[in-house]
């Protein structure tokens, strides 16, 4: 009995020592720093999986609510190499017709040697459709159900599509293809980490992309884990109307192709609010094939020249000089300038575009004949300091702040600056030696069409967040000229345009405007007349302007003159677009609001 007791005691002591040891070891593992670190590192590898979670990217809509940029589901189809190695031919036979891929490519991919460290899985495509996935599933099901003979079951059991796996993913999709692509920009869905490029996509990348977090998921089923709430990115609604945009895009494309121009730009805005109703450029790309942008665009031919490409606008700039001259009191519409064909300053002669002398001209005549000499004289009458103050007031020395990425501007050289000389004043007065973007020009001209009030241009109508919406309110950013000046200049330019560029006139709406043919300075050669920027700016109806349109053709080869290529383009586009802007013609208004409906052939409706 004693022997049994002593054995029991020994057992108890031994077990106590064992459990005591275990307890002490547990205590050690729980408190020792290196043991904790080891446990955590093991935990990182085997207990947790860290994944980056991105919320869905917000959509982009036109002003009517039509989708311009959305998200589409596609599937990445991959091959598990461990099981695909042995029957590449079999897999390729089934997958090639479903995925519309080359048989050999699939076969080679499937037969890549499995290597646990280097080659585990081989993706075939990132853009398989739901229908293709359903077909794969059907084939898999069919293969699983087939009856094999005992011989076949021994030899062909591995020949199935079990190695074919797929994962859903969301990618950016632009249903309207290249429509407004210069405004929208693109999101590189094949390489999302590169971030969005150009336009709205880049400007609002942060709010469109919503949230992105790295979350550590526990692999232990006992640890309840949830994906954090990830609200979708905000959606952006643009001010552009896709119908108007489409008309303008078709027209600019045709003009660029027919005139063999380098690029073309048309902007239409509402002068009363600063809304951009259309901003078309050509060439464009389909953002679904965004990788082509590097082939199409260069530093001389930017993605969206309307905001990214300052250039010497030429005579279009004369409207600014004229407005400054009238507003400052330096000139009046009836002021007469005697054009001798040259304007001399510091031994340098400035000539008219045709090298002609037009004799005594009123200010309207100066604009009708687009006299460089006259505008140089007007600038001199205004005075150097006042002239550049007006340019600042028109916002030509700063970006407009439109909600598009990469807006550029070219700083104006002023007295005291390195590049400014006394010759700069007269040349600047007719748009040479000074560079502006189309968006800067249309913003400045908006002031002429809106009683002197300059509105900030905007292309985003509203931003819709998960829980609230931000609607863009029109913002006045200055009043460079008085309302009276704006009215006078509009009336002068409506009159002068009838002589200067009758091709720009609209059938039943009276407009004001100005053409421009800016020579382009070539390195080592200077200004070359055969290479120009052909521009036109027009606004109407002259009585109460509701739209301003700016047209620019870069280096047209067939016809270099703004009055012959850009002016008729303006008329063509605005005639087509006017109805879609809900703007009646002058004649229609006269028919509605006056007792006499003018005949179509008369021009009485111009002055109803």
């Amino acid at each position, binding site marked *: 009995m004693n022997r049994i007791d002593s054995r029991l005691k020994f057992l108890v002591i031994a077990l106590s020592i064992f459990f005591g040891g275990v307890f002490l070891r547990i205590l050690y593992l729980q408190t020792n720093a290196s043991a904790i670190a080891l446990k955590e590192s093991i935990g990182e590898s085997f207990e947790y999986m860290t994944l980056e979670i991105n*919320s*869905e990217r917000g*959509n982009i*809509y036109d*002003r*009517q*609510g*039509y*989708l*311009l940029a*959305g*998200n*589409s*589901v596609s599937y990445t189809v991959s091959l598990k190499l461990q099981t695909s190695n042995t029957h590449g031919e079999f897999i390729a036979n089934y997958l090639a017709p479903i995925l519309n891929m080359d048989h050999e490519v699939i076969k080679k991919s499937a037969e890549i040697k499995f290597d646990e460290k280097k080659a585990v899985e081989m993706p075939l495509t990132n853009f398989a459709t*739901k229908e293709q996935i359903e077909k794969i599933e059907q084939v898999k099901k069919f293969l699983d159900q087939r009856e094999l003979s005992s011989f076949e079951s021994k030899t062909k059991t591995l020949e199935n599509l079990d190695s074919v796996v797929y994962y*859903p993913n*969301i990618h950016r*999709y632009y*249903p*309207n*293809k290249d*429509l407004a692509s210069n405004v929208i920009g693109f999101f590189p869905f094949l390489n999302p980490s590169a971030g969005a490029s150009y336009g709205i996509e880049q400007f609002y990348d942060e709010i469109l992309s919503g949230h992105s977090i790295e979350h550590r998921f526990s692999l232990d*089923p*006992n*640890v*309840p*884990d*949830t*994906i*954090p*709430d*990830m*609200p*979708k990115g905000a*959606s952006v*609604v643009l001010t552009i109307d*896709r*119908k108007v945009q*489409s008309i303008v895009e078709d027209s600019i494309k045709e003009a660029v192709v027919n005139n063999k121009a380098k690029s073309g730009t048309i902007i239409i805005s509402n002068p009363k609010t600063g809304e951009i109703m259309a901003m078309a450029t050509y060439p464009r790309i389909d953002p679904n094939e965004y990788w082509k942008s590097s082939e199409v665009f260069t530093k001389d031919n930017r993605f969206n020249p309307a905001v990214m490409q300052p250039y010497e606008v030429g005579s279009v700039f004369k409207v600014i000089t004229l407005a400054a001259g009238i507003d400052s009191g330096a000139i009046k519409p009836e002021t007469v300038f005697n054009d001798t064909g040259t304007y001399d300053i510091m031994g340098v002669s400035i000539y008219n575009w045709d090298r002609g002398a037009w004799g005594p001209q009123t200010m309207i005549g100066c604009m009708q004949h687009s006299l460089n000499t006259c505008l140089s004289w007007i600038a001199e009458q205004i005075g150097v300091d006042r002239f550049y103050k007006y340019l600042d007031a028109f916002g030509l020395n700063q970006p407009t702040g439109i909600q598009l990425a990469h807006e550029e501007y070219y700083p104006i050289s002023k007295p005291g600056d390195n590049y400014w000389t006394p010759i700069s004043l007269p040349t600047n007065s007719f748009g040479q030696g000074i560079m502006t973007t189309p968006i800067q020009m249309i913003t400045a001209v908006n002031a002429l069409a809106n009683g002197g009030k300059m509105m900030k241009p905007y292309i985003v*109508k*509203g931003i*819709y967040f*998960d829980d609230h*919406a931000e*609607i863009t309110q029109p913002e006045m950013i200055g009043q460079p000229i008085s309302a009276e000046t704006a009215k006078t200049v509009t009336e002068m330019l409506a009159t002068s345009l009838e002589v200067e560029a009758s091709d720009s006139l609209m*059938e*039943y709406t009276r407009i004001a405007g100005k053409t421009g043919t800016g020579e382009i300075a070539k390195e080592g050669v200077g200004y070359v007349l055969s290479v120009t920027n052909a521009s036109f700016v027009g606004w109407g109806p002259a009585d109460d302007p509701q739209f301003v349109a700016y047209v620019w053709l870069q280096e047209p080869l067939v016809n270099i003159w703004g009055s012959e290529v850009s002016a008729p383009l303006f008329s063509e586009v605005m*005639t*087509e677009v*006017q*109805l879609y802007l*809900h703007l*009646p*013609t002058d*004649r*229609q*208004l006269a028919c*509605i609001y006056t007792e006499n409906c003018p005949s*179509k052939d008369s021009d009485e409706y111009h002055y109803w």
Partner: protein
Amino acid sequence: MKTSQSAYRLAPWRKQIQNILNVLIALIFIASITMIYLYCSAQMTKMKLEIQVLHDERSSLTRMIADNLTQEGQITSFFEMEKRARQAGYIPIDMYDEEVYTYLPVAGFQDESFSSLNGVSQINSIPVSIVKPEYTESLQRWLKENVSIKKSGDQ
């Protein structure tokens, strides 16, 4: 007088039964604790699996909504609509011929302004998680957060 004295306080078999019962009681206690633990773990696992299934469904629905919205955008894209309009026999208006269209002012008509954007604001976003934080955080963290909130509230 002769007295008899027992060699044991308890009979050995009784003592053995007592020991066995003690061990059994301890085992039953441990088993009960283990059962409760296993039951809770099973409940949590079941809940987590349900959560994961719901998450999968949610993700799938989110993708489907996005895809359907884009498909709708594709079907109503400008080029598709134009193609269908032409197929249906519509022709573009000749804007130079004023006789083919008429401008009529309609009393009370409001410009499209934002009315047509109502649909945009109703874009579905990923729903808020239905699992309250209390179910996913540890007692230690709950105490820490609540105590710290109370402390800051006191101040």
